[in-house]
């Protein structure tokens, strides 16, 4: 994570996400998948092919791509279908866009009720016998049962969570890095899924995105760094208030 300053001098914290060897693996049509839209299987981050059996390598062999660590699905409209085997780059996103980021949260293991659900526990003194971090009562008398989903101690973390509506501040096309506002679930160097935001406030914010994706062998020549309009670039002199 890194600080970033706007032209008015405000500081924002930014997470760096690297797009590492992402390729489209397979196209699954609407009828085949049984959902509402077609799906595209995308894989990221190359990994050695020797730790899995040959049967697992079929998808990668069809696409002509080395074995990937993670394969995810993206629901995609029919006009945005991409041929399997195309590489995906960070330039697929543009600064000023809003994005949802999904990842597995940091695993905390078996945790008690105070850390896992934020219960207040009991006082440390004034006669409390062996009860300082316990949940207390778990149900009422009339219910005569414990409801399903009651908050109790258990394994915490290591589940998929999404942060919605994160702004993309800057894109580095040379190293394929996306600068995303705020924090993102997961530990450092963990695999993360980045999608266009589904929030209704940001529905129309994406003007002229590269559609269906940014092709590296196309005619467009992008500069090494793409900045949002409001970012203070370090090539400018210091900020002054008029």
């Amino acid at each position, binding site marked *: 994570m890194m600080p970033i300053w706007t032209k008015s001098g405000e*500081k924002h914290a930014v997470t760096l996400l690297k797009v590492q060897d992402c390729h489209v693996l397979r196209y699954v049509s609407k009828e085949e998948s049984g959902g509402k839209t077609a799906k595209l299987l995308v894989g990221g981050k190359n990994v050695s092919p020797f730790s899995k059996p040959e049967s697992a390598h079929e998808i990668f062999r069809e696409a002509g791509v080395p074995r990937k660590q993670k394969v995810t699905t993206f629901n995609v409209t029919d006009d945005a279908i991409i041929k399997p085997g195309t590489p995906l780059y960070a330039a697929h996103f543009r600064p000023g866009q809003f994005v949802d980021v999904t990842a597995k949260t940091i695993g905390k293991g078996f945790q008690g009720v105070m850390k896992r659900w934020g219960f207040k526990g009991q006082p440390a003194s004034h006669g409390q016998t062996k009860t300082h971090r316990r949940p207390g009562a778990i149900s009422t008398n009339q219910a005569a049962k414990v409801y399903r989903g009651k908050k109790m101690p258990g394994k915490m973390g290591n589940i998929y969570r999404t942060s919605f509506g994160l702004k993309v501040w800057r894109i580095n096309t040379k*190293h394929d890095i996306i600068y995303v506002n705020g924090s993102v679930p997961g530990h450092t160097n963990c695999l993360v899924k980045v999608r266009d935001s589904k929030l209704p406030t940001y529905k129309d914010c994406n003007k002229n995105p590269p559609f269906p994706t940014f092709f590296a062998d196309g005619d467009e020549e992008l500069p090494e760094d793409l900045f949002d309009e409001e970012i203070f670039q370090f090539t400018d002199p210091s900020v002054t208030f008029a």
Partner: protein
Amino acid sequence: RVSSDGKPPKFQPPPKPVIIDRKTQKEESRFLSPEFIPPRGRKDPLKYYIERKDMIQRRKVFNIPEFYVGHILAVTTANPLASDKCSRFVGICIQRGGTGLGATFVLRNVIEDQGVEICYELYSPRIQAIEVLKLEKRLDENLMYLRDALPEYSTVDVNMKPVPRMDHEEIPVNKVQVRMKPKPWSKRWERPKYNIKGIKFELPEHKMQAAQKWSQPWLEFDMLREYDTSKIEEKIRKELREELGK
């Protein structure tokens, strides 16, 4: 020597001495701002490389002078609420923290009997100028104990003129022993964990010895805590010299 013609041998002047100014060369390359050195961790070095590119870019446009803890600095920042739109603060640097773009330094001064500390970010675009008024190192790297010292040690004249300094001279170390206010202090500075050499402890002997109970003499031999930065530093120095020397 037997000459060829019988005449005395031709006078050979001694070779000219080659003066290698080692001092100047050493001074330039020996200082590396501490925020360039990446901390020990599992982050990708690519992140630090990209951050350094941004830092170098900022340094090309805005001059960040070399300074240590104990120097007296004057910082002018852009302030939308001031009448001039800029505010100037003079103080002693008591602490330098953070790595990369978020590097900070804390300046302390006593203004009208009120101690004031301001934490500035080195790479913030609101800073208009940083001037070093007086160069002097202190015995410690963290002068937070000035909060519990007598206010005369933290007062710096706001209209102080910059003290002229010869280039290529070593930065003088001020070995002043600071006198403290009566206890309680904000931190127990006599404990060996802080390793402070710049305080004149006027505590009784038994209290100083009781404080040594918290010493951890095994820490300096702990191999897992070793972090050898010499190779990383050389690489970063080379990078800086190439980029900023242009």
